[in-house]
């Protein structure tokens, strides 16, 4: 679907793109400030500043900043960056513009593993979920990639997408089966299932960080491979790329990024789908720009969605997964329609 040559952009486009990235970072910085400053409880800026500079553990308002807003801002930043990168890579590897982590069965695998952990092992803490979500994501990717590689022509985008969709359905069915027969697990899983930045404590961030850094490095390093794959396997091979190895590396990056993001925040819909498209409008198809742009724009979307969720349902909150789905569903439909018109 990426028909333009992706090996390089005219030199003159780089300066505006670089500037755009800086502007994106500035916007992200503002979102971070907003995420710390705005919430279900209205705190004046002076209190927020005071909490950040002179933390007093006895002051409930300071606790809100440090226990609620700072951790969820960090989770939003990291999970958002991971989802944005993973979205680009999946769309690149499968050459499917509507692909997102769901299509590889990664989210469903993570969910299944979390449910099994709650139901069988009695795991009931967020820090416990991380590992099982991660394990589930990895297992799902191995299964999907393994099954998708069977046959003479190896892991083609179509086979991976089909296998992913089939596994996604199978994992979901199993998950639902367990949830229907086990009320207590259902109640616990429910919250995680929707996807939220709230209620995740700082330990989750610390645990996830090494994985995320590895994932970020892998993802950003995959730009050339993705540019090659975008031209089709044959051309990529002709350019001297090792296609199966490149694709496997990309798959690894996706597993690490999605597994960790999902573990941290629960499955969050549409961010990984929407953001790469938005980024592509600005950068064009070159993955060397697409990846960093998505890495900046996805957390921006996620943090803004989270801030909206905190404000619209007071004194409760709307989980960010619901907000992104509400924003994302129309975008998804628009994409599908546009594709049909052009395709």
């Amino acid at each position, binding site marked *: 679907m990426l028909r333009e040559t992706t090996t390089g952009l005219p030199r003159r486009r780089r300066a505006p793109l670089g500037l755009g990235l800086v502007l994106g970072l500035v916007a992200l910085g503002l979102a971070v400030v907003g995420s710390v400053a705005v919430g*279900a*409880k209205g705190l004046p800026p002076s209190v927020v500043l005071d909490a950040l500079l002179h933390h007093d553990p006895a002051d*409930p308002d300071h606790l809100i900043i440090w226990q609620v807003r700072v951790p969820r801002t960090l989770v939003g930043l990291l999970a958002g960056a991971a989802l944005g990168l993973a979205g680009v890579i999946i769309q690149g590897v499968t050459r499917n513009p509507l692909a997102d982590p769901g299509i590889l069965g990664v989210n469903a695998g993570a969910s299944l593993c979390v449910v099994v952990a709650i139901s069988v092992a009695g795991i009931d803490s967020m820090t416990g979920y991380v590992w099982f979500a991660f394990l589930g994501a990895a297992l799902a990717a191995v299964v999907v990639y393994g099954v998708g590689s069977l046959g003479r022509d190896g892991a083609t985008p179509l086979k991976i997408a089909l296998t992913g969709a089939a596994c996604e359905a199978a994992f979901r069915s199993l998950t639902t089966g367990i*949830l229907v027969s086990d009320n207590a697990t259902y109640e616990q899983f*429910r919250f*995680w*299932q929707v996807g939220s930045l709230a209620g995740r404590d700082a330990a989750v961030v610390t645990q996830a960080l090494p994985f995320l850094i590895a994932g970020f490095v892998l993802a950003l390093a995959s730009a050339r491979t993705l540019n090659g794959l975008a031209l089709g396997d044959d051309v990529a091979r002709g350019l001297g790329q090792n296609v199966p190895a490149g694709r496997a590396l990309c798959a690894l990056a996706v597993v690490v990024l999605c597994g960790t993001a999902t573990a941290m925040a629960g499955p969050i819909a549409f961010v990984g789908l929407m953001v790469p498209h938005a980024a592509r409008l600005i950068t064009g198809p070159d993955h060397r720009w697409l990846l960093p742009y998505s890495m900046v724009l996805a957390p921006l979307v996620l943090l803004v969605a989270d801030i909206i969720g905190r404000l619209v*349902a*007071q004194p*409760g909150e709307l989980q960010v997964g619901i907000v992104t789905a509400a924003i994302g569903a129309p975008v998804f439909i628009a994409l599908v329609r546009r594709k049909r018109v052009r395709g």
Partner: protein
Amino acid sequence: MRSPRPRARGSLPALLLGAVLALAGCGSSAEQSATEPATPASGRFPVTIATAFGDVTIPAQPKRVVALGWGDAEVALTLGVQPVGASDWLPVGGDGVAPWMPQDKHYTTAPTMLGTLEVSAEQVAALDPDLILDTRAGGDKARYDQLAALGVPVVGIPAGGEAYATTWQQQLDMIGKALGRTSEAAKVQSDLDAKFQQAAGAHPEFTGKSVAVGAKMAGSYGAYVNGGARIEFMERLGFTQSPQVQAQANDSFYITVSPERMDLFNADLTVISPIGVSADEITKDPLFQAVPSVKAGHVVVLSDQTVSQAFASATPLGLSYAIDQVVPMITEAMAR
């Protein structure tokens, strides 16, 4: 592609919990006052009961009762009738009898256990019932129609009632009539009323004090508002519902509370239950600990699951048990 089903269903358990919590109002324990002599089979048949699905007539004293609604089996047992089929809403397992039920109210013949939200009509039919109780349930027309198609009187939620919002008094009244045990039911009610009055009378220090009643489910806090059984329970002891919580009330039994709005739980007394999470998640939460009433010790955490379920049960014997267990905890918390 994104699992619409769990999300769609997501609100149901919460709603159920909220509802149940809401229902638990007052209780009646039949032990103390022996005012009315019980006349067995005090009801006369045929008897007609008004339900949300129209008037239901029960032609003769039922012998094979299937109890499907939340608490229906327990109320039938309380009135001395053993259902042949029952749903285990709590879920306690086995034959679904809650731990607070006295030994002499247990089954002598174990019932067939049936589903709660989803009941197999085939399984119900196989039990050859002559009465089906579904007085505290979703009030779903499709479910009612399926059961009614068996040709057996089905006592659904009361006329004008809402899903899972049947009060314990309504439930007791309907089941008492349906089973022909109206005088037993009246005695159960008056006993529980008396027990509440006695508890309130013994603790004048409760009177007029504000209470915020909440729960923590996985990841989110909630607070109960008027119309709920937990609030009725506390009000019968003399407390008044926290005005700041009540001010946030919408059309549900509870409101969700952002972790940033824990100040809503501040009152003369804070009562909170863990639902599906460990009590640690409440007691070790620095945000909860920072609530002034909690910091001062004026807090009751219903960490014992049986006590928490009894408090929320909205059945006469559950509430009676809750009075025995919770009142001393409240007394201690208020004295701190």
